[in-house]
């Protein structure tokens, strides 16, 4: 099983889902994520599961809601405009405790934008995206291997928290081919979700999965329960800290941009500059505590994003009591090289 395979990030996500025991996939075409439904249309059926090309992203997300409510591991994937359409169902799933995995291969926006890489959906992904007070656990893989690994984890987390979990990638991750080592996790047995899933009463008390709470105080109670759940998710934070120990400047970047920033940091290190990289892997919950520790140790910060400044808000919120962060924007749709990061990094390092 430890053989390397050479595949696109999109396929890594799909294969990760299959390894995680995903049994239902609901999709709709949109670039740059088409490889996922295309791959699934055969692979998941071969594995004894179900594939539906829905009539719209709205329908795909609601199919996910239906399958998730029966306690079957299920997934949908899309890209930015399609993810906007899925938000209604995502809010309902969060509101009624339905586990599911939603993949967003972020493209450039707003509107139709373009099909190139971008990170403009950070706010939408980490602030709920749909209506009401809710959060998703959001993973931002930077490599094909991470895409595979985190997709597997996403299913476990979705069921652990009875909540939708998002994999947030972009066109770079989705379209780039690289070697990964697939592995087979131990799968949960048929008892997963047995205490809440719907499959006909079979003689037990009936069950109801809903997000409507009209009785006096009931919605407040539900929101309290959800908030407590999001608090617990704080225990799931993941990040990569690269050369941060003795760094004077920490570059904060995630996903594909985090990976490119790492190359820039590595190069600048070789040239003797004391820079490091902080790459959040969970975007929600945001790894605020380790970042604050770095701020307390007196480091400076530069956030680099493939958007006009979104994650920088979370960086600033994390370190606000002791420090601030500079910001460098890479405009959506362009594919940056590590060299483009050097000048802003050096400027920040010098406090300019």
């Amino acid at each position, binding site marked *: 099983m430890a053989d390397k395979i050479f595949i696109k990030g999109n396929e890594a996500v799909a294969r990760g889902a299959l390894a995680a025991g995903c*049994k*239902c996939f*609901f999709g709709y075409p949109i670039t740059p994520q088409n490889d996922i439904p295309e791959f699934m249309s055969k692979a998941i059926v071969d594995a004894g599961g*179900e594939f*539906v090309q*829905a*009539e*719209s992203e*709205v*329908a*795909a997300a*609601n*199919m*996910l*809601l*239906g*399958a*998730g*409510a*029966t306690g*079957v591991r*299920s997934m949908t994937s899309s890209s930015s405009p399609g993810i906007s359409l899925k938000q*209604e*169902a995502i809010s*309902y799933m969060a509101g*009624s405790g*339905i586990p599911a995995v939603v993949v967003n291969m972020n493209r450039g926006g707003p509107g139709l934008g373009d099909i190139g890489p971008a990170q403009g959906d950070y706010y939408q992904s980490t602030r709920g995206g749909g209506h009401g007070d809710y959060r998703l656990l959001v993973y931002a893989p930077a490599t094909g291997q991470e895409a595979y690994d985190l997709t597997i984890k996403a299913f476990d987390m979705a069921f652990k928290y009875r909540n939708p979990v998002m994999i947030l990638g972009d066109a770079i991750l989705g379209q780039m081919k690289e070697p990964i080592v697939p592995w087979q996790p131990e799968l949960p047995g048929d008892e997963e979700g047995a205490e809440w899933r*719907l*499959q*006909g*009463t*079979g*003689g037990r008390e*009936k*069950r*109801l*999965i*809903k*997000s*409507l709470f009209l009785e006096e105080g009931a919605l407040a109670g539900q929101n309290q329960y959800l908030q407590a759940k999001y608090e617990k998710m704080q225990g799931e934070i993941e990040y990569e800290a690269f050369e941060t120990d003795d760094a004077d400047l920490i570059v904060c970047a995630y996903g594909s941009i985090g990976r490119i920033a790492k190359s820039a940091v590595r190069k600048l290190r070789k040239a003797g500059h004391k820079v490091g990289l902080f790459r959040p892997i969970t975007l929600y919950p945001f790894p605020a505590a380790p970042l604050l520790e770095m701020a307390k140790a007196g480091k400076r910060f530069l956030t680099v994003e493939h958007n006009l400044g979104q994650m920088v808000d979370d960086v600033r919120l994390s370190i606000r009591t002791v420090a601030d962060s500079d910001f460098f924007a890479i405009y959506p749709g362009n594919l940056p090289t590590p060299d483009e990061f050097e000048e802003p990094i050096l400027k920040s390092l010098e406090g300019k």
Partner: protein
Amino acid sequence: MTDMNEKLVFERPESVVDRATHYCPGCHHGVAHRLVGELLDEMNLREKALLIGSIGCSVFLYNYLDVDAVEAPHGRAPAVATGAKRARNDCFVFTYQGDGDLASIGMAEIMHAANRGERIAVVFVNNTVYGMTGGQMAPTTLVGQKTTTCPGGRCRDKEGMPIKMTEIISQLGGVAFAARGSLDSVKNIRTAKKYLRKAFECQTNNLGFGFVELLSACPTNWKMTPVKANERIGEEMIPYFPLGVYKDVTEEGGAC
């Protein structure tokens, strides 16, 4: 002394919970619920049934039926049902939707679920109005009918003609059974139940999509007494929405 042995002729179906409903007097949702409950009992489906609730006055149906249930966003019940049925093929999956839900916001979902031949049953309650939100115009509102958003009466030139869903659905490939019944008289209620049974059988016999439209009264938003509202179904609705079976693959002699 005459023999006073009483014979019980009418009981609450086991699938229907023993509690008062929230419906207005003369509303037909309760009748439709009862028919569904009777069939779940008679067809032995209760323990494997999965109800996909929808948005509208019937949103609390899950409190009245003794079955597993999930709530769908407005109009999306056929997509939610698709996911549930694909995930658990052994369940009996059905949706229960109003006309605003099914023929307006959920038009795409119903058409495509029907066309794919999803093995689900759809109970479609057509009362020509948006009940829950206070009587606005629905896609099924009759020409000339006054609602809060067509106060001068629905105008064919501005608002179009009322949509005939059963006629449309029956044209789609995956549909095994499509019929329109009415809940305004005992005779029509009996026929409506037969239609529902057929639609349910399409799923249990793996034939395809089952669809039943039920013409129903909304006395509150029609601003009529229950009796007058009931009469309106026969006088105004049935002439525009003719009752009957529009598609039945078992009679046509084969699956779709």
